[in-house]
Every structure is written in C-alpha cells, then in structure tokens.
C-alpha cells in the first residue's frame, strides 16, 4: 500500500477506509482498507472500472457517507467530525453533474453562488470568468436540460467552481462526453491547477485519462491496487510491450492468435498492428504462433497505463472466472461477402423541431463488423432503434436482411439479435430464468431450448451463477448474460448498442474477442460505442456528430484523413477531434 504516513499538508488523506453497503439482502464491500493521499496543487486521478468504489470514495471525502472504519481528512479537517466545514470549503461535482435541468444556465449558477455564499459584489466578475472558460457565455438563458452533454459537464464544473475552492472533486466528469468536450474539460482543470494552485481529485473509468493526471490511484473491486505517477505505474510493464504486424493476416485473426499464445498477457488491436503485453521481456515467438504469416514483424512498443492495469488485473483474476478462451478459431480468410444485409438511405428522425438523426446513409455487408461512433446524443441509439424497428423513421428508407423490421413479420425479427444499452435484462429474475425466458421468446422449446441454455451457461461461464439474481451481478457478468440472451437463437445479424460502457478492460477484451469469432462465422455485427479506441476492432465505421454522419470508412482511412506532418500517427481520438474541428470550421465558414 502507498505510504499511509502521509506527506504533510496533503489536500486529502485517507487512512484504512472501509465501507460496506447492503443491497438486496447482500452485503457489498465497496471499499476495503483503502489508504492514499492527494498531494496539493496537482491533478490526482482515481481510476477504475464501474463498481470499483470510486464514487463511494468521493462521497466519503465529501462527507456524504460515513466510513465504517478508518478516517478521511480533507484539507486537514476530519470529514466525519466536521462535514459542514469541509463542504463549505471544497468544490464537488457529482455524477450527472448535479444540475437542475429545468433551470437556465444563469439560474443554476445563481443558485450555487447563493448556496456557496459568494457575495453579490464578487459575482459578476466570477460569472464572466467561468462562463467564458466554459464557453457558455452565449447560452446563459438556455435551460440546462437543453444543453449538450459536453456543455452540461462544463456547466456542472462551473457551478462547482463558483467559489474558488482549494480542493476540487469531480466524480466521473467525462463519462459519455465527446472527445472534444473531454479535452476542453481537461484544459479547464489544468488552468485551475496552474493559475490558482487548486488540488484536484478526479475519478474516471477511461484508462487513457490516467496519462493526463500527475498522480493516479488505481481502484478495483473496492481494493486499492496501486498509487503513483503514471510513469511509475507503467514501470512494471516496461520492456514487455510489443507491436506485432502481419500484413498478410486479418488483424482480428492475428489478435486472436496472439491472445492465446504462451506468455501473452494481453493482445489488443491498435491501428494496423496488434499490441502485445508479455509476461516477461521476451517478445512473442512469431514462428510458433503464426507459422503461415510470412511478413510478420515484432517491434518493441512504449508501455501505456492500460497495459499496466491489465497486467495488475490478470494477476488478480482466477482462471476459472473467465469464459473458456479456446473458442472457435477466427478464420484467416475473412467471412465477408459482397451481399449487403443492412442498407440505410437518407434516414431521418425528428422529435418536434429537433433532428436526432439527419440524412444518414450507409450499407453493411454480410459478416462485417460495422461501428457507429459518437458521443452521447449524437444519434447512434436513435439510428439503432430505427434499424431494429423500435422507432419509426421520419424519412428515408432502411432495410435489414431485405425487410423493414417495423413492418416485417416475426420471421424477420427471428434473424436478428439485439443487445441494448444498460444491458437490459429482467433484474429480479435469476440468470437461468432470464435465459429460459429469452429462449422461449425466440421460440426455442424442449430439447433444443435446453441445449441452447446449456450452451449459454457453458460458453459464457455463467453456470456457477445460474441461480443468482441478475440485478446483483457485476457489470461484466451482466454484459455476458445480455450477449448470451441476444445470441440464444443464433441470429445472422447482431445489433449491439454501447456493449462495453463501464465494464472493466478484461471484460471488454473478452467481449471483442467473441465478436471477432462471431464475425468469423459470418455473423453481421453492428455496434455503437463512444470508446474511440474500440473503433479499431471494426471493419468499417461511421462517425456520428449531432445526428449526421461526419465520415465513414475503414479505421485506417479515417485516421489517414487526420494525418498531418505534426501528427504522423494519429489515434482514433485525435482523428475524431480533428474531423470535428474541421467540420465546425466549415460550418462557421458556411
């Protein structure tokens, strides 16, 4: 554990924190003996997947919860004893930003200024500064509920900053926000640190954001895994990360092979190569793993925080908790044909005067993995719902497997599988009951139905928890169960709406592995995500912004569009930001 003996003058000092909750008759250990400190004047990141205990920790620090054991001090005050003093000093932004959606931007600011006791004389200067910083100056009369996700996030931040606090705590401020807004938020945070010496504690589930913090506290399942600078955290995997390229192999097949090779801890598609983390500093033996690939090359790669995190997690996970990985071989030949199975022309969806989806056209071929990328509210889910026949379009045409699912009969619906956002399952039913229900809903009865349920229990390693209530499952298990239900009837087309949001990196890897296998069997897969790096797994993708498709193509094509001399090898996120900024400039010029 990090040194609990604490540097003097820490902005926040947690000592042996424990916190348990009772949820549905079960005891959940949200935090287990967590000790760390937040140094003043820097950004400290609290990093971990959903359910790691980040929010509990934030609430303990804000005096909203009382620890079962241990103590937490903020700016030298014991939070348990002096909650009001702590709350009168810190700035805090809860998840979902804590805004009143039926109040305007100005009214929200006024409210928090009143509550924080900002004197009326000091307000107008402070408002000017905050509104300009957040880029909200033109929108002071707009209702907070009518702002985009990124603007809400910045307004929430402005409200937390209305009285310049010495310690700023932000609970998952970047969730579901587009990359441009994320960058803007980070700019504001850095400015607070530089200009005012503010200490910042920020929680996030995005592992890449760790790299932006000066210090990182890593949480998983209520345990503190590690604490340090991103550099020191990366240290254990230094020299163990490699980039493998094999031009004559499809990258998903390459990734699948490498993932199962001896000594490989992690294999991840990244651009045109596969990133590999090894158990030690010997590179993967390409001769043994990829005998048929003649052009395979391996190069050392710089370590990333995510590599270290996966390494830490793998070390903790028991092998029998993960589903079997000797799944069907991803074939070397792509299963794609030229047969178009999903076709969308000038699709539109209007809600009142607001266009949620406007002039969207694309085509997906059989066996292809097609991704829709964009921030929350970009129109991805609306497009999906129209494709699945859940929402009538206001204009344009769409065909899925040759039919419009809205009018087509039950047979057409039997050919698709659908996994919605939030892993919608019947929460108070057990895993087995959910499987049984969906198999019956798809008309699988008797021996065939029983076979499929057995298949799902085994394939997704759900058998040990078959009788657990599904609401109490971890997000990773919910995701597996949800996918199992969608695959019950062996559909030819699979719709996946935000299938990986909030789950830990291991579950995400396992998920994409399976998607690769399915695509290899000829299943057409359509997927939405707001994780830019997941775009790499897609054969083709479309980026959506404000209801429209900004660009479409293979991941390499899209990144190529953003290539500049200063940025020879842009990531998908770089490309996204670049394209949006170019788009905005165009819109301004027009």
């Amino acid at each position, binding site marked *: 554990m990090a040194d609990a003996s604490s540097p003097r003058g820490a902005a926040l000092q947690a000592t042996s924190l424990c916190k348990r909750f009772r949820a549905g008759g079960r005891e959940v250990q949200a935090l287990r003996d967590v000790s760390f400190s937040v140094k003043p004047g820097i950004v400290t990141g609290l990093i971990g997947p959903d359910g790691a205990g980040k929010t509990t920790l934030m609430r303990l620090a804000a005096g909203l919860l009382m620890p079962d054991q241990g103590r937490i001090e903020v700016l030298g005050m014991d939070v348990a004893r002096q909650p009001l003093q702590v709350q009168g000093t810190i700035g805090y932004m809860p998840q979902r930003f804590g805004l009143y959606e039926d109040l305007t931007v100005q009214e929200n600011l006024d409210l928090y200024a009143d509550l924080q006791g900002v004197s009326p004389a000091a307000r107008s200067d402070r408002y000017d500064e905050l509104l300009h910083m957040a880029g909200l100056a033109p929108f002071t009369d707009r209702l907070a509920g009518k702002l985009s996700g990124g603007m809400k996030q910045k307004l929430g931040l402005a409200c937390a900053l209305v009285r310049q606090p010495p310690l700023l705590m932000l609970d998952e401020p970047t969730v579901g926000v587009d990359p441009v807004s994320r960058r803007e938020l980070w700019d504001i945070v850095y400015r607070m640190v530089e200009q005012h010496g503010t200490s910042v504690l920020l929680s996030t589930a995005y592992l890449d954001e760790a790299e932006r913090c000066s210090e990182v506290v890593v949480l998983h399942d209520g345990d503190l895994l590690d604490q340090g600078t991103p550099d020191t955290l990366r240290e254990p995997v230094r020299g163990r990360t490699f980039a493998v390229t094999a031009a004559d192999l499809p990258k998903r097949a390459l990734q699948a092979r490498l993932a199962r090779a001896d000594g490989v801890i992690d294999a991840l598609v990244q651009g045109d190569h596969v990133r590999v983390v090894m158990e030690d500093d010997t590179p993967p033996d390409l001769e043994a793993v990829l005998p048929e690939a003649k052009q395979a090359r391996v190069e050392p790669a710089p370590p990333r925080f995510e590599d270290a995190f996966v390494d830490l997690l793998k070390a903790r996970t028991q092998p029998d908790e993960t589903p079997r990985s000797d799944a069907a071989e991803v074939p070397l030949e792509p299963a794609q044909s030229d047969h178009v199975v999903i076709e969308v022309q000038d699709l539109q969806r209007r809600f009142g005067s607001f266009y949620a989806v406007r002039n969207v056209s694309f085509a997906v071929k059989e066996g292809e993995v097609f991704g829709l990328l964009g921030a929350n509210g970009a129109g991805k889910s609306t497009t999906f719902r129209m494709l*699945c026949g*859940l929402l*009538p379009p206001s204009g344009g045409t769409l065909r899925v497997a040759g039919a419009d699912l809205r009018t087509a009969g*039950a047979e057409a619906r039997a050919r698709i599988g*659908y996994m919605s956002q939030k892993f*919608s399952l*019947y929460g108070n039913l057990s895993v087995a009951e959910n499987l049984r*229900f969906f198999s019956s*809903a798809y*008309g699988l009865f008797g021996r065939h139905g029983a076979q499929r349920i057995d298949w799902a229990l085994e394939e997704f390693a759900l058998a040990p928890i078959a009788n657990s209530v599904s609401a109490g499952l971890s997000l990773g298990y919910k995701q597996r169960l949800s996918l199992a239900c969608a695959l019950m009837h062996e559909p030819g087309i699979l719709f996946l709406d935000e299938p990986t949001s909030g789950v830990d990196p291991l579950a995400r890897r396992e998920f994409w592995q399976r998607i690769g296998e399915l695509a290899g069997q000829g299943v057409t897969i359509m997927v939405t995500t707001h994780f830019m790096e997941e775009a790499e797994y897609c054969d083709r993708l479309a980026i959506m912004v404000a209801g429209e498709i900004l660009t479409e193509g293979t991941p390499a094509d899209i990144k190529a569009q953003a290539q500049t001399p200063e940025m020879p090898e842009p990531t998908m996120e770089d490309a996204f930001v670049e394209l949006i900024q170019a788009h905005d400039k165009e819109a301004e010029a027009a």
Partner: protein
Amino acid sequence: MTSVFRRILALMGKEFLALLKDRRSRFVLIVPPLIQLLVFGYAATFDLKNVPYALFNEDAGYAARDLAAALRGSPSFTEVAQLSHSGEIAPLINSKEALMVVRIGPRFSADLLSGRTAPLQVIVDGRNSNTALLVVNYVRAIVDQFNRDWAEAHGTRLPPAYIETRAWFNPNLESRWFFLPGIVGLLTLLVTLLVTSLSVAREREQGTFDQLLVTPMRPVEILIGKALPGFIIGIVEASLIVAATVFWFGVPLMGSLLTLYVGVLLFLLSAVGVGLMISSLAVTQQQGMLGAFFFMVPAIILSGFATPIANMPWLIQQLTLLNPMRYFLVVLRGVFLEGTPFQLLIPQLWPMAAIGLVALATAAWLFRHRMY
C-alpha cells in the same frame, strides 16, 4: 400455433416471477388492499351509533321520563348531558359535544294527558347534513313507537293509517352490506390497475421492452402475455375479498357464484384493458402510477360506490356510462344481496366487455406506435 401458446406462457411466467420476486410489487399487492378492506369494512358506515345528545327536560311528568328512557335505550344515541336552561343549548351544539339536543317542554306530560298534541323539539347540528338527516329519522322512529305505545295504553285515537315498512335484501339496513360488495370492485380495480399499469412502463423504463419487441413475439402475444397475469391476480384478489366479505364480515351471498364470476371476468377484461392502455401511454413507472391514480379516483367517485349515481346531474350520469366500475357494482350488489339472476344482469355485462375490448385493442396499437 403451439409455439405461440408456449411463447405467451413463457411471457406470463416471467411476468409472475418478476412481480412476485419484487419486494415493492408484493407490497403493493398485499398491503394497500388489506388496509383498505379493514378501513372500509369497519370505518365506512353511514349507520349511526352512540350519537352524543343532550336532554333538556323541563317537565317532571312521567310521560317525559318514558320518552327520555326510550331515547336512552336506543343503541344509536348516547346521552352526554342534561340541560337545565336554554342558554346551554348553543354552546353544546357549537362545540360538537352533542350532535343533538332533545327539548321536552314544561307542559309535555300535561298536554299528553289532556289529549292535546305535545310538541317535542329536536335541535340538530347540520354541519354534516347526512348525519343530521339520519339523526332526525332515528328520533322520528323512536317517537312513532312512543306514540303507538301511548295510544294503545291510553286508548286515544290513532291516525287512520300507519306505515308498515319492510326493507328488502338488507332488512336491518346495515350500510356495511352496501359497502362491502362494493369493496370487492374497488380493490379488484385497484390491484389490477397497479399490476397492469406498471407492467409495460416498468419494462420501458428498464429498457427490456425493446428487447421484447425485437423478439419474434407479436404485439398481440405480448398483450395477452401481459394481460393474463392481471386477470389471474385480479381473480385471486376478488376471490379473497369475496371470501372475507362473506365469512369475516358476514354479508350474505344470495345469488349464484357463477354469475358473480362472469361479472368479475368481464370487469377484469375492462380493468386490464384500461391498465395496459395507461401503461402503453406512460414512459416511466411514475407516469403509469399517476395515470392509474387519475383514472381510479373519478372511476370510484362516479361509480355509485358511496353515493348513488341517480343523485348526480344528468351530464355526469351520462359520463358514468363509460365507467366499468358502475356496471360491476350493480352486478356485485345484485348477486350478493338481491340474488339477481343472470339474465337481468346482461345489460350490465355487455358494456364491460365492450369497454374491455376497445381498451385492449388500443393498448395493442399503442405498443408499437408509442415508442419514444
């Protein structure tokens, strides 16, 4: 065809599991009906007991004493004070210590004995006019009896005609007999509406309804799968309350159970239909609940449950024709107390069926057309 049935059966099974495993819905199914059955069974009564009254007897004669004794002997009245001057009347009534003052004038016995009509004055608190009306009627009955006894004993001439009253179906005129069969309808409506009005809304809120709609199940199958649990729970609930009404509260069941259950089924058809309609319109459980509440309140008030429809203005009476409760109450009270045969109830039965079918059809249409 069998696969259709099995799909519906699977959906029904799921609905039951989801409903009975959830602590909140179990609570909603059990606690409010129980409380209401008890409260209505015991509290809702128009029968007066122990009405506090004061006696202002200015007459020392024995006739006055007899009358006072008759009052005191009635279980409907409790004497709380004896007054000695008229100034005491107003404060007593004003402060609600007594609901009534019975004033026997100083010449009461003398008048009686001399064959003149002796006046007896009652002063009643009219703040609750229904109670006041009943109090006056109760006193009148006591006075009538006194008159008859007096005439018999003294051989004075009686009026040439007297009224001989018989109450059919409820000889002791117990208002509990009137309310309890109504409660069968009230609670069945309440529970069925809560079960069905939340069933689609809950799935919409949790996102599982989308999941359901992309399966090969047709809207009609979903509708049936969602409606049947409402039916079954409604029948169980109705049967329990009927049993409690008969065995615990001792209300007679004169008519045939078969007729009663035909009524229950048709009423459930309309209640389930309305519930599913509300549910398909609602996006959140919140809205579903509010919708159910705002349907239920007028449906109960304008059903004849507590006050007769005949007393309502014409326009509102026409409005009640759309209210399934109205018909069901006639069936319930008819079968329970009057033993009304089936054919006399047909005019009550078909409107419930019609309302139910229209509501169910609308709900099925809304499943697919109300989606955002």
